[in-house]
């Protein structure tokens, strides 16, 4: 059975998700990769971050290919989540996002952070960027545009297919 959920996530909605569930996610999500995580951390630490409300937001670890003329976005699958692990507990504390989308396993501190905030880690299918691009109906660079593919994009998605990899109780299906 496929569960349908939308952003921003509420704590109740997150609690209803269990590791192993297949989910279709709709609404606004934000991309961020290594460089964006580093920059966000620096901005928050120096007290100069403003502009985007990440409360209940979902962060997607993705650096898409450029959009062809007339297209919303190019290929847009997930990148390896582990590279973001070092930044996540601090940013979850400070920015209040509840969901993350990526691929591969997470560190113990990230799992603890998910439990603490009643968050969730979704896995998208790595190597399915063409399929996922069809689920993205709007895309706009909103932060760090100079980073190109690594900029923060605000995406509007419709029925983005995901798997709950780590649920709010810390149950983890990654091997």
């Amino acid at each position, binding site marked *: 059975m496929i569960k349908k959920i939308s952003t921003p996530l509420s704590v109740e909605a997150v609690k209803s998700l269990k590791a*192993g569930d*297949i989910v279709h996610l709709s609404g606004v999500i934000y991309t961020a990769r290594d460089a964006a995580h580093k920059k966000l951390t620096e901005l928050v630490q120096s007290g100069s971050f403003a502009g985007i409300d990440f409360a209940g937001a979902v962060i997607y670890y*993705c*650096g*898409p*290919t*450029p*959009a*062809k003329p007339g*297209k919303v976005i*190019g*290929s*847009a*699958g997930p*990148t*390896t989540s*582990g590279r973001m692990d070092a930044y996540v507990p601090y940013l979850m504390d400070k920015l209040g996002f509840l969901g993350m989308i990526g*691929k*591969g*396993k997470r560190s113990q501190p990230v799992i603890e952070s998910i439990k603490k905030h009643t968050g969730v880690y979704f*896995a998208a*299918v*790595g*190597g*399915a*960027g*063409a*399929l*996922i*691009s*069809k689920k993205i109906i709007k895309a706009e660079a909103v932060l760090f545009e100079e980073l*190109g*593919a690594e900029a923060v994009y605000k995406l509007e998605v419709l029925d983005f*297919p995901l*798997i709950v*990899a780590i649920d709010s109780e810390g149950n983890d*299906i*990654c*091997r």
Partner: protein
Amino acid sequence: MREINFDEIVSKIESLCLSANVSLADGITDCYHKALEAEETAMAKSIIADCIENQKIAFEEKVPLCQDTGLAVFFIKLGDEIKIKGGLLSDAVAKGVSLGYTKGFLRASSLDDPLYDRKNTRDNTPPIIHTETVSGDKLEITFIPKGGGAENMSALKMMSPSAGEKGVIDFVVDTVKNAGGNPCPPVVIGVGIGSNFEGCALLAKKALLREIGSRNPDPRYKALEEKLLMLVNETGIGPQGFGGKTTAFDLHVEYAPCHLASLPVAVNINCHIHRKQTVII
């Protein structure tokens, strides 16, 4: 001598960059369908079904299979009766990559400096080129766009010869287990055994060039390939690392003579979107 124009190579490389990023290597589609049959859980089946759908969309709409369109890796066989007119072969390949990646809306993933600047070169150059001279008047160019996720989980070990076959097997299986879902399984695995430090890594990459389903002509290495593939699939890592029967679609071993004191082993992993295309000029 047969003359080939610099510009002809450039334009062949440019279109190779595009086609290799939207279509799978021969045999992978069949692997998807076999995996769909073999997998038992709804999750594993749904992942493989998404891969099948992805590959259709990529091919029909000419949108890259994956947003990581890789570092551009080339294996070239240059016939000794060929003269290239108008420039160097390596420059022609680099120019073709630059045009292919910028005009083709592929992602540039190459950085100028690994440690300090890490600045994007913006056109996915420089390519990585391995050239071998062969007899004849043909130029054969094989291109594999190699993504970071799978390349990062690859490993090399200079083993003690006393480790023997068991040591090799343990190292390969441990490398796959450690990789988990990161290299986007089901993977294709290239194993290099022998040569020296750099030669062994190259053997592993060359093993990835082999046809899906092919076996090493040496019966001992053929048996080793079959045993390793079975053990890798018995790890249960499965599609995307969420458990299942298909962890690898195939595994190839290449070997070469080595120093009497050495047993080098390298494992190069590629993801389920195994991309590889060849042009002959």
